[in-house]
């Protein structure tokens, strides 16, 4: 269950998991997680979900793009 908390916001946490935070903000979240096992478990749970989604679907990124999708670009 996502912990009820004032900091970090859920939005900041998702950005943290996506690697979109500055080093300073990243460190703030890591410091908060080190003090709060519930927060730390929630971060790991969300990170595991993200990793799982990438493992399930990232292979598609490397598939050749089907011809019919490329042909869309040939039409005027």
């Amino acid at each position, binding site marked *: 269950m996502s912990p009820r908390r004032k900091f970090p916001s859920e939005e900041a946490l998702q950005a943290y998991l996506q690697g979109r935070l500055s080093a300073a903000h990243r460190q703030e979240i890591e410091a908060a997680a080190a003090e709060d096992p519930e927060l730390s478990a929630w971060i790991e749970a969300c990170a595991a979900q993200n990793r799982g989604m990438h493992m*399930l679907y*990232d292979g598609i990124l490397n598939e050749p793009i089907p011809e019919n*999708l490329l042909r*869309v670009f040939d039409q005027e």
Partner: protein
Amino acid sequence: MGEVRYLIREHIPALRRYARALLRDRDQADDLVQDCLVRAINAADQWEPGTNLRAWLFAILHNVYVSDRRKLARRPRHVTVDSEEPRLEYLPNQVKSVELGELERAIRSLPEQQRITVLLVGLQGMDYKEVAEITGVPLGTVRSRLSRAREALQRILNDTQTASSGELHVTKKEVS
């Protein structure tokens, strides 16, 4: 115009990944991407250079998906057995495949708006603002959909783990 087409092409792999996660069936997913691309190219002059092209494209795909999904659901199922299998060919090892199969089932069991939201954030790496733009809802709605989706996924995955290690669970209960 020519340059926009080039930029749109760059997004095809990500659009295909998202469509496949939404629809599972490969042909239906690529049909969805194709419809999205046709609309995007026809409306390319409406995209303002310098604004978020990815969000613009995903919004088009989202709108096509929402307007087509009843039609897609009604379409006779002529998919092959192979394309209905969980896509586990990308797995590094067997141990993980059980959990990933559970995750895929858990994602599919989510209410549609929650599934869309958690895929856009967790898989596509989008922020709340992009998801709000794509799905046409306020930020607060994105926030609550994502929280519910994350919690539901975790509940399902925890239940699965508990079920598969039931003996350990019972022992701990008796001790306490």
